Structure formats: structure tokens, C-alpha cells
């Protein structure tokens, strides 16, 4: 019978098939490029963003967890390890999932509509959402997940071969493979391929600021607007995520936000209203916010899927609070999947699921009232 592990196997198989005809290039003591190997067979590299402490301990400076890690231990993410007082990333080049996806799947609705993104991930995550959709890779350590060895240059070349103008670090949590994200973005830039990140936004300021100039767009999963939710269901904190959102927005990198509405846990009218008000006031009304439907998974299997009525209500609240681009996700065919001009109400980009049915934008503006629509259109 097809069990849940099959999904992990499927991801591994997807990796195996994701060599994209790469030229095998034997490197001394490194796995062959494009080969599927156990995660711990990929060479570790010294991590960026950490400092050395006394007695060979290290302090990670990548995410707000700020793990202090003794020798021979890994950080909370499970993919960074202290080896003899030097902190290493175990997942640089260790792509455990590689797919070519429509950019709408990320979702980005204001970034090159209808285009494709070569999407990649490694094992590991810095939080533990009880509702994680990709827990078979995000909640496992580097050595527990099979990976394809794809150094950044090969990733960028694979995107070009696939006709994808975008790279997207996604699926698990790009923060924990931030060096790979950075180097892939640089490699992509050399080939004219732009990079996007799909993240929880739980990252410290310095690494965020260092990588932002290399990115075209950033999507943040804002899990809720209450600290208690972050503590109880995410094992993280809300405040650093809000700070990251401010930094991303101020950087000029295109920003979109996704809010997964989970029945009874983060879907109250008051919370949705607070969130929408904060976005409008702090980030601006033109930042797209996607309210998406929860489906029971991982450790939250006792709840039902989010009723469409709940998403409708959030959508209405967001618009009433002044958000110009509120969307509804994971409900194929919903009117909230399409982009409408906030000036005149003209239907601009019509979508069904991840498909773009029509795009009437003209040079990034509404063809009816000529209002400029913010986004990355060319």
C-alpha cells in the first residue's frame, strides 16, 4: 500500500530525476554532480554567520533561535554542525527536492505571471510547525534525507535548460540553507536568472540584509499574528518575523505574504483584522496577502480543512482594511485567485489554481484606468 513514507521516497525520486542531463563531473572526494546520495555524503562547508565561543562551542547568528552549539552537536535546524569548533552547513549543494513549478505555486502573483521557477530545497528547518506540509524533508536532518548534489552553478544551468527564468528556494526552509540560496542567486544572476525565496522569515537581520540584494522577490509565510500561536504551534516567535518583513519591504525586493488560516487557531476576525491593519500601516496597502486553506497534516490531523467561508471572511476583512491585493489560495476556481485593479475593478490577471488564464496587464498597468500595478512584470 502506498504509505506516507512514499511521499518522501517520491521527493527523493524527484531528486534523482532532477539531474536534468547534467554532465557528470568527478570531483576529488565529492559526489558526482547530479548523483543521488545520502545527505551525509555531501561535503560539509564552513557556515557563514556564526561566531566562535570558548571551549570549541559556537553561536549561530543565522536565525533568531541563536543556537549555541557544542562540539559534535547540530543546531536546532539539524543541518548545521559544530565540528571541532568550526560551524558547518551540511546542505550546501544538497538539493533534496528539485522541481520546475509555475511561479503561481509559490505563490507569487505579482512576479512574471505564467512563468516557471526551478524550485529547490534541502533538508531541515529552524522551526517546527505542527501543520507543516513538507515535514518529510523539513523536519529531518541532513543525513536522513537523500539529496542530489547540485552546486549553485549546476542549479542555475538546470534552470536555463528548463527554460525557467527564475530560481526559487522553497519547500522546506531556505533560511537553514542560506549559503546555498546566496550562492545560487549569484550563479543565477551570471546567467540572467533571477532568484526568489519562499520562507518563514525567521531570520536575523545581518544574513537577511546580505542576501536581499541578490533576490528579485521574497515570500514570507506569516503563520499567525499572535505570539502565542508562534510559541505553541511553530516553536518560534512572531516579532522577528515582523521585523524581517519590514526589512524586506524597505529593501525594495518584491514582497508577498501568505497566511495559512487554520480553523480555531488563527482564523478569528480580530486576528485577521489586526494582521491586515498592520500590513497596511507598516508595509503598505500594495503588498499582496494570500489567505490560504489549511488541510490536516503532520501533527494537526484533528482539525478539518478551513471552510471556504472562513477564507471569504478574511478576504473581505483584508479588503475592507485597505489591502489592495488580497487573495484566496488552495481553493481552485475561487474569485480571490485573480488580480483585480484596485482603482477601477478591472479584472487584470485571471487564474485558476496555478494556471494563468488571461493576463491583461499592459506594461505593468491596468488597461482600463492605466493605474500602475506593483510587481515584477518583465
Amino acid at each position, binding site marked *: 500500500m502506498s504509505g*506516507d513514507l512514499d511521499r518522501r521516497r517520491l521527493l527523493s525520486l524527484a531528486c534523482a530525476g532532477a539531474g536534468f542531463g547534467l554532465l557528470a563531473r568527478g570531483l576529488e572526494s565529492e559526489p558526482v554532480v547530479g548523483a543521488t546520495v545520502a545527505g551525509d555524503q555531501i561535503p560539509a562547508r564552513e557556515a557563514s554567520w556564526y561566531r566562535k565561543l570558548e*571551549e570549541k562551542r559556537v553561536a549561530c547568528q543565522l536565525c533568531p533561535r541563536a543556537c549555541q552549539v*557544542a*562540539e559534535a*552537536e547540530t543546531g*536546532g*535546524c*539539524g543541518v548545521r554542525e559544530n565540528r571541532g569548533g568550526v560551524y558547518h552547513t551540511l546542505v550546501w549543494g544538497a538539493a533534496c527536492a528539485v522541481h520546475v513549478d509555475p511561479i503561481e505555486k509559490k505563490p507569487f502573483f505579482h512576479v512574471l505571471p505564467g512563468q516557471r521557477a526551478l524550485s529547490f530545497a534541502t533538508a531541515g528547518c529552524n522551526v517546527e510547525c505542527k501543520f507543516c506540509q513538507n515535514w518529510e524533508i523539513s523536519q529531518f*536532518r541532513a543525513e536522513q534525507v537523500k539529496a542530489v548534489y547540485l552546486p549553485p552553478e549546476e542549479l542555475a544551468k538546470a534552470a536555463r535548460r528548463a527554460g525557467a527564468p527564475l530560481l526559487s528556494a522553497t519547500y522546506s526552509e531556505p533560511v537553514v540553507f542560506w549559503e546555498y540560496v546566496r550562492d545560487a542567486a549569484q550563479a543565477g544572476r551570471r546567467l540572467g536568472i533571477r532568484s526568489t525565496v519562499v520562507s518563514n522569515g525567521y531570520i536575523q537581520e545581518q544574513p537577511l540584509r546580505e542576501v536581499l540584494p541578490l533576490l528579485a522577490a521574497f515570500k514570507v509565510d506569516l503563520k499567525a499574528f499572535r505570539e502565542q500561536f508562534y510559541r505553541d504551534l511553530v516553536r518560534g516567535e512572531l516579532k522577528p518575523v515582523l521585523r524581517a518583513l519590514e526589512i524586506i519591504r524597505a529593501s525594495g525586493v518584491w514582497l508577498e505574504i501568505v497566511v495559512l488560516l487554520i480553523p480555531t487557531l488563527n482564523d478569528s476576525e480580530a486576528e485577521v483584522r489586526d494582521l491586515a491593519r498592520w500590513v497596511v500601516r507598516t508595509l503598505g496597502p500594495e503588498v499582496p496577502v494570500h489567505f490560504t486553506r489549511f488541510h490536516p497534516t503532520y*501533527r494537526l490531523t484533528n482539525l478539518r480543512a478551513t471552510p471556504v467561508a472562513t477564507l471569504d471572511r478574511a478576504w473581505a476583512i483584508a479588503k475592507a482594511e485597505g489591502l489592495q491585493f488580497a487573495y484566496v489560495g488552495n481553493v481552485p476556481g475561487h474569485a480571490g485567485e485573480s488580480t483585480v485593479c484596485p482603482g477601477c475593478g478591472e479584472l487584470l490577471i485571471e487564474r485558476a489554481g496555478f494556471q494563468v488564464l488571461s493576463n491583461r496587464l499592459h506594461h505593468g498597468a491596468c488597461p482600463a484606468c492605466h493605474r500602475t500595478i506593483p510587481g515584477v512584470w518583465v
Partner: protein
Amino acid sequence: MREPLSRRELLAVVSAGVVGAVGTGAAPVRRGKVGLARLPATAVGADMTTAQAREALERALVAATGASSGAAAAKQLFAPGDTVGIKVNTLGGPRLSPRPALVEALAALLRDAGVGSERIIVFDSSSRELQRAGYTIRRSGEPFLCFGIDNDYDRQPASHGAIGSCFARLVSATCTALVSLGVVKDHDLAGVSAGLKNWFGVIHNPNKYHDGNCNPYVADVVSHPYVRSKLRLTVLDAGTAQCHGGPAYRPDMAWPLGMVAASTDPVAIDAWAWKVIDEERTRRGLPRLAEAQRPPSFVATAARYGLGVGDPAAVREVLA
């Protein structure tokens, strides 16, 4: 004063108790009793013969259980039909892991109790760590099997107390009886890594549960029915112990404690390990673990769950 259990703790204890009640009917736990056997000077360092290990292990078992002999103790604790999983902690490498000679001695006792060679499984998280610590990987044959979990976990996570983890199938499905075979060492985050913390190695995501000195997470793993209903014995190779700088081996912080410890009370033996580590730290002018902000508070939590005796004053050390 004993604190009341929280709702979450109560659920953990009740669910564990329900399964435990229909468990294997193993010998009763000698609550609070820790058997100690001194090793001969020649067996304290890296080298120890199987004969030396067996002699010390048998004395520790007799002291811990009150049985007439080591073999009698093994028969009290294990039945011929059992499949016995011996979880070793080999993270510390060859200098700070349970020595293979002690494992061989324990396996020999189990065989004497009627447990077949292929029903004795020595394991840790990965085959690589086992090999690094001097173990030979063996998936069939005699005198016992030895291999890593190597990603063979349940397909779905089990939520229990504060943890949500996929357990090794060796623990959830294969074994009917379990032994924790650890060492006595300081741990940078948990405070102490001895018998209880060893069980972190049977879940897929221990890296998620090192906050707050691993409390209540260690106790939650051990109180899960998969472990609690099968755990018969804890043995510690305390030939070399380490009072600071763990979990990796630090020669300057290791000292020759020169003992084998055994107990059917998994909490009491950790309370003892905590005590001896603190005593050594005091001798060296280091702050005690509580003063160093890393008391192994999971010991008290495990006691509150009913897993054993956590109050050091109530632990009875029996030196054989």
C-alpha cells in the same frame, strides 16, 4: 513538595500506563536502587576484556536487583521470547562510548537467559557512529546483531507530551524489551547525558528538543509507551566519565570513575550520574550543573511522570 502534573503530563503518564499495564510482565522495578561495581584498574581506560566487563556487570546487576547472580538477574528481567534492543550512545566516539566489551558481556548474559543471538540487537542512531566507536556492523549471525537506525523510522510522528516524533521502528515495532547502555557525561545543553538522554537517539528529530535543558522532552520520549512499556534495564559504562564539555570527548574533562552502574530504575541511575558529575565538578572548582544554568531538570520531570526516583536523597547506591 511534589508538584501536581499538568494536563499534558497527566495525558502522557496515563497513556503510557495503559500500554504498560498490558505489557510484558517484566520483573518489578527496584525503585531508587542503583547497583555499582568497581572495575579493576586495568579495565578503566580504553582496554577492558569481556571477562572483566562481565564480572563487573554481574556484580552491578546483583546489587541492583537483589538476584542471586547476574544470570538470575537477567532471567528476572528478560524472557527467552524477547527481542532485546540495547541502545548504546556512541556519539562520544571510541573514548567516551560504552565499550564493546561491556556490550558483549551483556549480550552473553542475555543469551544465558535464553534470548537468541539474532534477538539481541545493539543499535544507535547511525551505523557510522557505531563503527567509529569500535563496533562491527552485523545484520545477521552471532553473537548479536549490531546496526544503526539509519533512517528506519515510523512513517508518522507520534505526539506525546511536548514531542512529536517518528520513533525508530526497532523501538516501536521490533523489540519487546529495551536496555539503555550509556555513559556518564556532561552535556552542554541537557546537563547530563547518561541513561535517559540516550533515548533521544531513537527519535528522528532530537535537534528540535534541546531547549530548556531538554526538559520535558527527554522525559516525554522515555515515557512514551514504546519506550516505557519495554524498558527493563539501564547500564552505564562509567569506566571513564566526563564532567564538562560534553557531549564530545574532552580528555581534560574526563576522569577515571572506574565503575559499571546498573539499575532497573531509569531515573535513579541518572540522578546518581548527575551526583557524581557534580562531585567531580566541585573537586575541580567548576560550578555545579545547576549553578552553570544547566541542571538536568528532565530527571525530576521523569520522576513526576512516575518513571522512577529522581530525588538524590532517595536513591540507594549499592556497591557490590
